[in-house]
């Protein structure tokens, strides 16, 4: 009686653990790797399904040492056990392939703090001022129609294109300081060229 009490007490004192959310997310993500699993799933679909003839079960049954009490339970559970075994096989195959897929791909999770200093939103571009050049040249093309201005304009256009190209490659959550440094350098160069063009107008 004391043993039973002690056992109950010990069971009550056992700590309860809940799996962290990230574990479920990870499992969910790995299950969602449809692309990588397509060949496997296709192959699984193509596997032939065979039903064992009744004689096989009867043969097995006759070889089993059976007791009166167990026989009906086993018989009732047989379809369930068969499904469970099949599922285990499929799950085993699935996770076997997941852990070591064709390319040996492994997934990992971590966190990092975003560095606000290297975000593109923090850079101020003088696009409005730059657009002024186009307006002036459109209104008074004679001002812009000389070799020195054309050369500067060509340089300015090239820098604008590079600025656009690089800006579109930098993500909203940039982690590459070198890209921001390059963008800043382009920005400074085109500002310099812009000043030279303005001086000619």
């Amino acid at each position, binding site marked *: 009686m004391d043993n039973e009490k002690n056992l109950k007490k010990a069971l009550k004192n056992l700590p309860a653990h809940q799996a962290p959310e990230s574990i479920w997310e990870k499992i969910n993500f790995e299950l969602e790797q449809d692309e990588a699993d397509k060949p496997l799933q296709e192959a699984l679909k193509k596997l032939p399904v065979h039903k064992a003839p009744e004689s096989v079960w009867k043969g097995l049954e006759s070889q089993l040492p059976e007791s009166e009490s167990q026989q009906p339970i086993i018989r009732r559970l047989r379809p369930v056990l068969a499904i469970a075994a099949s599922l285990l096989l499929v799950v085993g195959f699935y996770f076997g392939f997941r852990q070591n897929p064709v390319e040996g791909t492994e997934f990992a999770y*971590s966190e990092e703090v975003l560095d606000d200093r290297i975000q593109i939103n923090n850079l101020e571009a003088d696009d409005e001022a730059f657009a002024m050049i186009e307006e002036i040249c459109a209104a008074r093309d004679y001002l812009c129609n000389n070799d020195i201005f054309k050369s500067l304009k060509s340089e300015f256009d090239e820098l604008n294109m*590079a600025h656009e190209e690089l800006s579109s490659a930098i993500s909203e959550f940039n982690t590459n300081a070198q890209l921001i440094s390059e963008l800043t350098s382009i920005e400074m160069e085109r500002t310099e060229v812009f000043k030279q063009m303005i001086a000619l107008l």
Partner: protein
Amino acid sequence: MIKQFLFIVFLFGLASANAQTTLQVVSKSTNKEFTFQKGQTVVVEGEKAEIKVETWDQPQVVVSIILFAKNPDRSVAENELKSFNFTFEEESDRILIRNYYAGSAKAKSELTAQYFVKVPTDCPVQMSNYFGKTDVENLSANLDVNSQFGPINMYNIEGDIGIVSRFGDIFGELLNGNVKIESHRSNVTLKGLQGKYDIKSKYGLIKVFADNRLIDLNIEAEKADVYLFNPEPTESGYELISHFGEITLPEELKINFVENNDTKRHAVYTPGQQQIPGVYVKITYGDIVVRKNPKP
């Protein structure tokens, strides 16, 4: 009073901690090994990639790639990582390794790649990289790099080297061979040079630290400044031409100016003995500076 003060400090700390954005980083990685066959070139095509190539004394090419997706929302990072992939192709003349983003729209996550490639010392390497960083070390075979918006670092390379860079600085140390560099809006720094160099540059700063192991240096540049550092500047032969720029020389280099006016300066110097190494620099809208620097 002290308690109140500490509480306020704590609140400030909490507020600043909350202001930070935490990125959920999801990555996938793989390793791949190839047996290198003579005649094959390792071709690496990276995008937003940090590529590092090193050599080893084994006949295999070993590649490790990690692709990262970073976003405050983990599910966004996970989904976009599905479209951010790598491929390997092996053919008789090349081993191709590349990463690409196949998403239909621009990714919301920060997608980056890291390559670590080990090749046999005599394995030619060809690389292209956009918005990334390229490092190559200890190679005794041909090297070709085409990079945009990212730096190229080379150390201890022997062979034919071809570098094309746009908006990305080039740094090379202990290079030996036939080296061709085309740079556009890129600074070029070269140290400990042997062999022959052809450098074409537009907009940028070129700094060459040379000694008498250099055989030939040809630089043609536009809107660029060229600095030549040499512990024994008088032991080299020079032909220096600057259109609309200045030529500055160390005191001991008694150079002969063929032309010296505001629009063109043309200076020639032939040392007493053999004319090796030879330095030829021709620039438009830029300065040429030769300086004596201490022996390394």
